[in-house]
């Protein structure tokens, strides 16, 4: 590890211009605390946008056909209005984007990106995330995805309008570019989640402080760990589905178009042969685990706050942990309960009903444990606790209303009604969102050194609780009465629902009042940042490690690596409600140059407000000599691996899910396909592909040699073998390009048949992976190799990791080659 002179570095950085320092510290920071705040602020803005959309939609539902208020019209824009009222096509756009924004841009980034990022490293006693720059990239990918999503509103025909579920053929036929933007946005958001989840898992596994055994992790950290696995493994199939839908929209393929579609009296000019249900399987394979992504971090937050404010340990901590793990596992085999009505047979529906009922058990265990935790406590009713307590019955209602939807028989009546909407809003809005509010109130002093106002907090809590129920309970009533979801007229054309239409205005009024009820919250945030009551480092008397970290926060979190001595919730020790035993105390800061941390230099308190003040002593993000993260090169004894190695395997796991989803699509399409499948398969260039296979296998061998030369300390030969690897990769790509050209010249385009569609998609995606590998290897051959002179061990590591990736890409081809060229 490079040992630069800390003193010299400080002066170097301080000499940087102020503007650049600002950029590094607040905008392009790699500090997990800053990134957490960036996520938090951005996600809250998106939540406001998503909420705003629904407030407009609720006008259309409450007063069908009547014009919006003048001031609202100017916000909504003439494009979306017809004589002042919201147009039906705009209603559909707003609905689709409300769901997308709330789930992908609001709740998940807030629960995982903000709370997870800020708290997980602190709670496990780590100096930062395992991969700080990936963490920064994750935020920027998220922001880009969000900007793409929002930008689509300004397209001539507006944003995506086919629901957040984007079922084809409706979505793939949707006019304009809104749906295309949506797909691109989803791919960016998936990238962000992927980078984030690799980071979370590696951080929790590799960077736990000394003594922080698995069963001493706060429940919040467990919840984030399971969440990260869900994101890692569930998102790739959606990316695969997104790529396929993008191909349908852009390249004219027929992945989701069956043969013989008509639009009006016009036959749709596509080859056909695809399957609309393929999308639903891939989508729900993501989207059901996604539900647990929405709820697990919330459960984690509530658990922390309840333990703290009952002043006693959580009841049944171990069963909660195992329940969360079981929940994560089960969430991958329940997806088709969203699809009972797609013509499902008895045995398959019985399987998914059973798994769905089984998955309700761990959720019940977690929530019961939280409720039973209240027993015997000495309960403090502060704002965070109020929100956390309200979470329990609200999530309870949301969970219980899932039961009739889990059973196929009762789902017949309730499927796609407002009952479903009520069900999941109870889980996500007064459930997760309340937990997130609780978290904001609870951890606000951690990042600002000030407490939020209790009065404004209660002014926020009480009306929010009332109006949330005012919106969502009537949805259950209307749904039971048979009103479908996604109706522009709110059910006015349903004769069977006439007596339930009066609720529409009631719900809309509740929604608008709920909007007003958020004003105290925003005021509270702003006011408390500047003028909130100053508090000590641990105002709640909390046990977990984040409260042992010094305030103001420092870059590197702890002056010296903390040591953990006990479980997470040792409250009320010796029969005193105020007493507690912190999980671990940072030892007095001995100057430990080997850890690369300089002693903290507390910066002055005032002024900065919520923004942490990282000390710019480590030259963040500048490549060399950045925050030394433990186990970047050295193996952690109890896990037996280094961070990058764990990271790359996690990445490859997600890649396996991605290609696995595409291979499954291949199988499904082939089963459905007609004779043209074989004809087109027979026209592939087998000799060229065989040649390419040999090229790629050879390149794997040269890649291994390159790495071996580094172990032998021979940079010259390393360059030779690395150069050869790159060359072989380029030869592969050129041959591939030639093969594509040959196909195109014979009129064999992806739109010709489902075989050609999947052939071009699979080989194209693989080609992009090869290209990515060539670029990485090129970097390691060129500018990246400078690291050899300063940190040879680290450089060797990088080459090894790049090698693992390269072999994987090679392996994918070894599966692709027989599947496409030999089996056809």
């Amino acid at each position: 590890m490079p040992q630069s002179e800390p003193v010299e570095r400080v002066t170097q950085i301080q000499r940087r211009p102020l503007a650049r320092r600002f950029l590094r510290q607040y905008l392009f920071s790699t500090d997990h605390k800053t990134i957490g705040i960036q996520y938090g602020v951005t996600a809250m803005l998106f939540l406001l946008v998503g909420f705003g959309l629904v407030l407009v939609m609720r006008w259309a539902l409450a007063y069908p056909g009547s014009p919006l208020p003048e001031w609202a019209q100017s916000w909504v824009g003439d494009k979306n209005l017809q004589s002042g009222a919201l147009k039906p096509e705009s209603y559909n756009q707003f609905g689709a984007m409300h769901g997308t924004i709330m789930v992908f841009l609001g709740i998940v980034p807030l629960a995982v990106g903000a709370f997870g990022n800020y708290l997980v490293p602190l709670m496990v006693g780590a100096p930062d995330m395992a991969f700080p720059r990936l963490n920064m990239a994750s935020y920027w990918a998220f922001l880009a995805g969000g900007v793409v999503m929002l930008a689509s509103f300004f397209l001539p025909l507006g944003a995506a309008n086919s629901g957040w579920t984007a079922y084809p053929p409706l979505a793939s036929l949707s006019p304009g570019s809104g749906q295309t933007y949506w797909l691109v946005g989803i791919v960016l958001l998936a990238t962000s989640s992927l980078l984030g989840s690799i980071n979370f898992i590696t951080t929790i596994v590799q960077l736990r402080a000394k003594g922080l055994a698995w069963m001493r992790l706060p429940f919040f950290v467990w919840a984030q760990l399971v969440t990260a696995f869900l994101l890692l493994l569930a998102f790739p199939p959606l990316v695969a589905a997104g790529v396929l839908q993008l191909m349908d929209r852009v390249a004219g393929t027929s992945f989701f178009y069956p043969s013989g579609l008509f639009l009006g009296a016009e036959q749709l000019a596509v080859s056909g042969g695809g399957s609309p249900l393929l999308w639903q399987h891939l989508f729900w394979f993501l989207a059901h685990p996604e539900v647990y992504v929405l709820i697990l971090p919330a459960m984690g937050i509530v658990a922390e706050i309840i333990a703290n404010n009952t002043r006693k340990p959580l009841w049944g901590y171990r069963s909660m942990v195992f329940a969360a793990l079981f929940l994560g596992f089960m969430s991958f085999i329940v997806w088709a309960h969203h699809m009972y009505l797609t013509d499902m047979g008895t045995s398959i529906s019985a399987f998914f009903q059973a798994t769905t009922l089984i998955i309700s058990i761990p959720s019940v265990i977690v929530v019961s444990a939280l409720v039973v935790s209240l027993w015997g406590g000495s309960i403090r009713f502060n704002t965070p606790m109020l929100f956390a307590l309200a979470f329990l019955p609200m999530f309870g209602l949301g969970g219980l209303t899932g039961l009739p939807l889990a059973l196929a028989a009762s789902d017949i009546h309730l499927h796609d009604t407002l009952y479903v909407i009520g069900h999941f809003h109870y889980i996500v809005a007064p459930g997760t969102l309340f937990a997130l509010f609780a978290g904001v109130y609870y951890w606000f002093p951690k990042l600002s050194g000030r407490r939020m106002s209790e009065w404004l907090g209660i002014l926020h809590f009480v009306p929010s609780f009332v109006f949330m129920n005012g919106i969502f309970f009537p949805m259950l009533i209307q749904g039971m009465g048979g009103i479908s979801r996604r109706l522009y007229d709110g059910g006015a054309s349903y004769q069977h629902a006439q007596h339930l239409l009066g609720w529409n205005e009631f719900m809309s009024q509740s929604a608008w009042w709920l909007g007003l009820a958020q004003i105290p919250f925003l005021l509270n945030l702003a006011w408390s940042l500047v003028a909130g009551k100053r508090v000590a480092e641990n105002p709640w008397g909390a046990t977990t490690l984040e409260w042992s970290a010094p305030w103001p926060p420092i870059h590197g979190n702890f002056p010296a690596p903390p040591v953990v001595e006990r479980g997470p919730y040792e409250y009320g020790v010796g029969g005193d409600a105020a007493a507690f035993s912190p999980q671990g105390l940072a030892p007095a800061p001995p100057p430990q140059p080997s850890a690369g941390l300089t002693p903290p230099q507390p910066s002055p308190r005032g002024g900065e407000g919520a923004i942490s003040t990282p000390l710019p002593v480590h030259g963040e993000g500048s490549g060399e000599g950045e925050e030394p993260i433990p186990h970047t090169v050295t193996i952690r004894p109890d896990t037996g691996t280094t961070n990058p190695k764990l990271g790359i395997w996690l990445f490859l796991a997600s890649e396996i899910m991605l290609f696995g989803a595409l291979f499954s699509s291949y199988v499904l399409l082939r089963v459905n396909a007609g004779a043209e499948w074989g004809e087109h398969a027979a026209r592939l260039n087998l000799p060229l592909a065989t040649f390419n296979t040999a090229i790629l296998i050879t390149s794997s061998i040269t890649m291994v040699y390159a790495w071996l030369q580094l172990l032998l300390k021979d940079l010259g030969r390393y360059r030779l073998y690395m150069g050869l690897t790159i060359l072989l990769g380029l030869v592969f790509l050129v041959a591939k390009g030639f093969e594509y050209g040959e196909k195109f010249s014979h009129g064999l385009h992806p739109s010709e048949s489902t075989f050609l569609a999947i052939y071009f998609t699979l080989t194209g995606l693989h080609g992009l992976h090869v290209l990515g590998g060539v670029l990485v290897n090129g970097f390691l051959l060129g500018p990246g190799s400078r690291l050899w002179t300063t940190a040879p061990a680290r450089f060797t590591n990088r080459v090894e990791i790049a090698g693992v990736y390269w072999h994987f890409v090679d392996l994918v081809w070894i599966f692709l080659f027989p599947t496409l060229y030999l089996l056809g």
Partner: protein
Amino acid sequence: MRELLGLPILASEQGARIDLTLALIHALMAALFLGWAAFYLYCLYRYRRSRNPIPNTMGARSHLSTYAEFAVAAVMATILIGFSIPIWSQRVEDFPDEKDATVVHVIAKQFAWICHYAGPDGQFGARDPSLIDAANTIGLDRGGAGKDDVVIEQLHLPVGKPAILKLTSMDVIHCLYLPEMRVKQDVIPGSEIPIWFTPALTTEEFRARKQAEGLSEGTDPAMVNFQIACAQLCGVAHYSMVRTLVVHTPEGYEDWMRKEQEFLAAEAAAGEYEFEEETP
């Protein structure tokens, strides 16, 4: 029970079991929620700081919650095995013989439900995509077996006789929804999905029931009807993809079919088939 849950009027023979399942689950849900809420509120009251300044760090010692969880799991398993699976199996496997049923091809397209009847000969005419135009929306070949086929944007069924609907879509995914029959089924382009049920109330009886329950206030009783709705977002006018279902007495159904045949004969004589739009 139905009124308590707020379900629409029930008008099919198969729906009663679905309603019973819904009632059982909701009873279980209510019991769970109330039990839970009582415990929760008691805790909040009994263990507030001013009343209980010293926490009991051991917490609850009873295993009651574990037993409760087992009990709930057992009840759910009973509902699954005793109700949900049999209902489903009846729905997707126990189809009546087509000879004993009214068979209708229901074709969904943006934003209409088109019902295609075989007519007196019992043979469905062929459908040819090349014949599709603005008037002949489903491409029915009027030669041969299609001569007496009725194509209409209304669903007509006789009461008490099983109906088999064969669902197809010409464009996107729709979802056939007959609230009073407790029937809902996705209609997926590229596949034909059959569904069956037995109407138990005629439209006349339904109107009377509705009036008796005070659900048709302010509407002309003669305008009250069963409806076919679309439950799956299918585009800009999805909300208005609603058509009428008329359930006749057996004789009434025969009458209706005879009138349709007369109508067809008149059209055939005029040399041109008008594919009928919705008639009152």
